[in-house]
């Protein structure tokens, strides 16, 4: 009987522990080192940041097909790549969503969307969701600007693209562009972290 009590106490403590872990998903903060990835691109090839030898850094965008915020930002993500890839910061888009619950986000549908919108950047499928988890991507779109520093990738900015998802002409602050322009001038990123409403990443159950 006493043993049973001890066992239930242990179970209780353990379950409380795991509950707390869930509440603090973690992920990167500005200044952290980011890991590289090897994910399947819509062209069928495994793609890593290390494939881009000339790049000075990356604009990693966790995004997807089904979310209205991602859709609202598609043209602006394309514009970011057009403006900054030549300056050494290409866009890499990553779709981490569970495509069983959200078939719009399947690999086949990613190919279709990329073709329709003429994505000039890789659009990768994070099937295991490990990269989204490690980075701490919570929603779509969720941007991570990374800078190469020797062999490391350092996180310089995490957050929203700008301050108006609905209306590009109503944008007052372009968070990502500001951060990139500051990086180009070797300045510190003045606003390294922003929050935004977005569709939560659809984790597998």
């Amino acid at each position, binding site marked *: 009987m006493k043993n049973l009590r001890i066992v239930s106490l242990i179970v209780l403590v353990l379950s409380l522990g795991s509950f707390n872990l869930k509440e603090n998903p973690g992920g990167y903060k500005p200044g952290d080192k980011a890991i590289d990835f090897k994910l399947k691109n819509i062209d069928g090839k495994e793609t890593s940041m290390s494939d881009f030898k000339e790049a000075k850094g990356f604009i990693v965008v966790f995004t997807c097909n089904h979310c*209205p915020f991602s859709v609202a930002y598609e043209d602006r993500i394309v514009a970011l790549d057009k403006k900054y890839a030549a300056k050494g910061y290409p866009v890499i888009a990553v779709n981490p969503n569970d495509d069983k619950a959200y078939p719009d986000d399947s690999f086949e549908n990613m190919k279709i969307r990329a073709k329709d919108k003429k994505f000039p950047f890789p659009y990768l499928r994070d099937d295991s969701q490990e990269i989204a988890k490690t980075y701490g991507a919570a929603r779509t779109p969720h941007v991570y600007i990374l800078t190469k520093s020797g062999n490391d990738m350092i996180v310089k900015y995490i957050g929203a693209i700008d301050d108006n998802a609905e209306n590009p002409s*109503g944008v007052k602050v372009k968070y990502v562009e500001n951060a990139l322009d500051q990086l180009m001038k070797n300045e510190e990123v003045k606003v390294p972290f922003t*929050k935004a*409403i977005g569709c939560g990443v659809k984790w597998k159950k």
Partner: protein
Amino acid sequence: MKHTFTFSFFILTSLYFWSQVPGINVIQFDALEKIMSSKSDSVYILNFWATWCKPCVEELPAFEKITKDYKGKKVRVLLICMDFKSKLKERVIPFIKKNGLVSEVLLLNEPDYNSWIDKIDKSWSGSIPATLILKGSTTNKKFYEQTFEYTQLKSEIEKVINQ
């Protein structure tokens, strides 16, 4: 001078009524701040949702049942809609009608999300659904970035009521 006054009054009232759509009000963040700082003994349940958010729509019946459960009591469910304002007539109002929502729906037209997310709760990443339960007369507020089942929601509300 008098004419200018009457004219501005006319413009302001028309603007006011123009922004009022049956079944839904379009609000700015200051309206939420007022609720959050109110000293009334009412319990407020602020649920952040959108018509396009599947888990949000799935949990709406739980919030609707709460509204019905506490009818006439000092418990107010506010469904804070995060759809774009441009989708109000095309999506949001038809959605409210189709689902016969009885809870109060407010469309928060405040696109600079980064300026106010932390004011709801510092722990909020910004993904929805998210729910804030508060009682004006106490400093207690509880924030949840998760989905709710009815029984769990009810028990969280009862905890705040009985504080």
